[in-house]
């Protein structure tokens, strides 16, 4: 009881102290009119991406408390719904800016982010993208668009590097692989990227067959039959949550356990997957943007999540949405201004080393892209994910090859 008392007092003291310092103007900067920076957060809160949008929102919810704890100024968050569609994304971006948003964050989907980017650029309002992997967005020469998320080629390069690390640690490597991918924006981009990036890494395996499937398909038995018939040792996947569950079920029913399931994208690590499949969820290794479990702020975020949303594992959606707001808060703190142009200039010189994602930290190159991000490899184990590569950001050893499905109780 008394310890709680002390904690509150200390926190209040720190808040009071920083406020006093600020108001004394000793830093030489005045926070404009005492009004917090107005940040418009655009996410798909309805429509087919609603589930992911709601998950990203958790990152936003956690940000408010955590940013304050880290000593950043308050942000006034205004929520917008892109309804998972491009028209609405654009209109809502206009609306939020019209209502005074000085910075935009969003929007998970590449198409919608692209539309918002155009509006932001035109209005001169900085737009920090939380999640969107399509390369073209940062190739347009925009001055107000920033992306703290890897592009598809980056994800791929890191994936291959991590895979080699895993093979080395396991002492064995597969020689053949079959690849299955959803025939949507992300899946196709990854598949095309693999063709371009893989040769540079001298991987021990060859992809003997590539199978593209309709992402809205509810029955993937034929696709899995085809994959099994390819006779490969490794299964490489680019899919989303529902397909991941469907495919795993088919693998069990058709009695095929590959040496490993390497997923380069979402789905296989998500809570719903782990919960639905229980013991059958163990084994797949995902190669995707993740967090560095050894970093201090990552641990803080994990703790905050456990407190506010118990039973939910920390994932990409939470991390990168949080980091987008972190970038905003950091720029605001450094400039003390909520003028969009000044903020954009400030974001360009961002250098946050106390962050959550793997790599040296958050910084942006001339195109507005954080090209120093590193992606991790993490494996499903006992209802959670453990990070198995890269070494600097890992906390476990990979289980490879994985345990056959029919040997799990």
């Amino acid at each position, binding site marked *: 009881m008394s310890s709680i008392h002390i904690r509150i007092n200390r926190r209040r003291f720190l808040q009071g102290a920083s406020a006093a310092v600020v108001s004394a103007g000793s830093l030489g900067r005045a926070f404009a009119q005492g009004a917090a920076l107005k940040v418009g957060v655009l996410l798909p809160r309805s429509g087919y991406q609603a589930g992911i949008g709601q998950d990203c929102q958790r990152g936003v919810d956690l940000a408010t408390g955590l940013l304050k704890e880290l000593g950043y100024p308050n942000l006034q968050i205004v929520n917008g719904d892109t309804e998972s569609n491009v*028209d609405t994304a654009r209109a809502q971006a206009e609306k939020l800016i019209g209502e005074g948003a000085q910075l935009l964050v969003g929007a998970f989907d590449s198409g919608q982010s692209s539309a918002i980017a155009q509006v932001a650029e035109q209005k001169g309002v900085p737009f920090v993208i939380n999640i969107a992997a399509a390369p073209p967005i940062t190739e347009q020469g925009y001055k107000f668009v920033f992306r703290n998320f890897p592009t598809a080629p980056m994800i791929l390069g890191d994936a291959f590097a991590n895979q080699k690390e895993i093979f080395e640690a396991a002492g064995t490597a597969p020689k053949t692989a079959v690849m299955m991918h959803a025939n949507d924006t992300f899946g196709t981009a990854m598949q095309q990227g693999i063709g371009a990036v893989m040769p540079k890494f001298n991987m021990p395996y060859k992809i003997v067959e590539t199978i593209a499937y309709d992402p809205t398909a509810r029955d993937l038995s034929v696709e899995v039959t085809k994959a099994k018939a390819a006779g490969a040792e490794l299964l490489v996947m680019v899919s989303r949550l529902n397909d991941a569950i469907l495919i795993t079920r088919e693998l069990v029913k058709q009695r095929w356990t590959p040496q490993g399931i390497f997923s380069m994208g979402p789905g296989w690590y998500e809570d719903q997957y782990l919960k639905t499949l229980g013991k059958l969820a163990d084994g797949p290794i995902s190669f995707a943007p993740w967090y560095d479990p050894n970093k201090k702020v990552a641990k803080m975020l994990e703790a905050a999540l456990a407190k506010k949303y118990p039973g939910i594992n920390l994932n990409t959606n939470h991390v990168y949405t949080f980091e987008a707001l972190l970038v905003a808060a950091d720029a605001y703190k450094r400039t003390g201004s909520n003028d969009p142009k000044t903020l954009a200039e400030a974001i360009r010189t961002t250098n946050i080393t106390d962050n959550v994602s793997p790599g040296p930290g958050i910084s942006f190159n001339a195109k507005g892209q954080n090209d120093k991000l590193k992606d991790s490899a993490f494996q499903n184990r006992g209802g959670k994910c453990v990070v198995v590569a890269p070494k600097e950001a890992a906390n476990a050893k990979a289980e490879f090859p994985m345990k056959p499905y029919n040997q799990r109780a």
Partner: protein
Amino acid sequence: MRALLFGGIPARGWTLLLGSALALLLLPLVASDYLLTVLILIFYFAFVGQAWNIMTGFAGQLSLGHALYVGLGAYAASALYVHFGIGPWIGMLAAVVLSALVGAALGFLAFRFGVGGVYFAILTIAFAEFARIGFDHLSWVGGSSGLFLPVAQFSRNELWHLRGHPLMFYYLMLALAALALIVCRGLLRSRLGFYWQAIREDEPAARALGIDTFRCKMIAVVISAAMTSVGGVVFAFYYNNLFPEQVFSIARSIEIILGPFIGGVGTLIGPIAGAFLITGVSEGLIELLTGVGLAVPGAKQVFYGICLLAVIVLMPNGVWPPLAAALGLKRGKPRR
């Protein structure tokens, strides 16, 4: 020609028309950018709604896959721009030709084999879905990863390349919607228009009267397709990215027909009135639900569906006919 296009409008009608035209022209002076964006969308739906109306409302051939022509137009012009640097106004010609050909093929296949009514509607859906999946696999236009148009800075308005401030698109879409209205009026009041209405009401009887129903229906489909594709071109250059999943989807086809449906299929002002009403209701619902705190995903669409249901049940001919009557505009329009 002048009498055809502009004759026969009651004085009150002129006042209303010119009044609203003036209001819309001057609106950007006071409107926020957000409102402009909303209006651009309204004009777009009014435009393609008019185009759809020609085929379904005038000639009676129900099309449920009109997103096909939007997509064809959008992709044709965009591909030419991205790969060969050809400007959109020239690309529009290619878009129109492509859509017209596809429309003609569809029409030919359907009408030669006597496919009509519901079957025709399903055929249109099949064509649109076919295009959707087909374009998903066409890597020349980006396949399912999408086609991104290079975006330039917005400091200058370049009408030739359709790059510019939303204000430019506002006036462009307004002009297009107005043009569509004039063209449709001309068509409806022409001999062809009367043939169409005859076919719509009773095709065997029309044939018995000596009307070449096949030719008339084909013309309707081709004009409708061509006009719709123009809308597609502007759409592409406004949003600057295209994904087959979104552009050709059934949801889009339904969006297109909601306007004319609510406003009044087969009427002239119907698609325009409908477009305003639908977007207005849509945006209004967002405000209402956020205000009441009921902004749960899906809530807006449920209300939307209920409104739609209400209009269909209570005002089967659309909102415009009773509205026109209330405004005192006596028009000798065909009644259903």
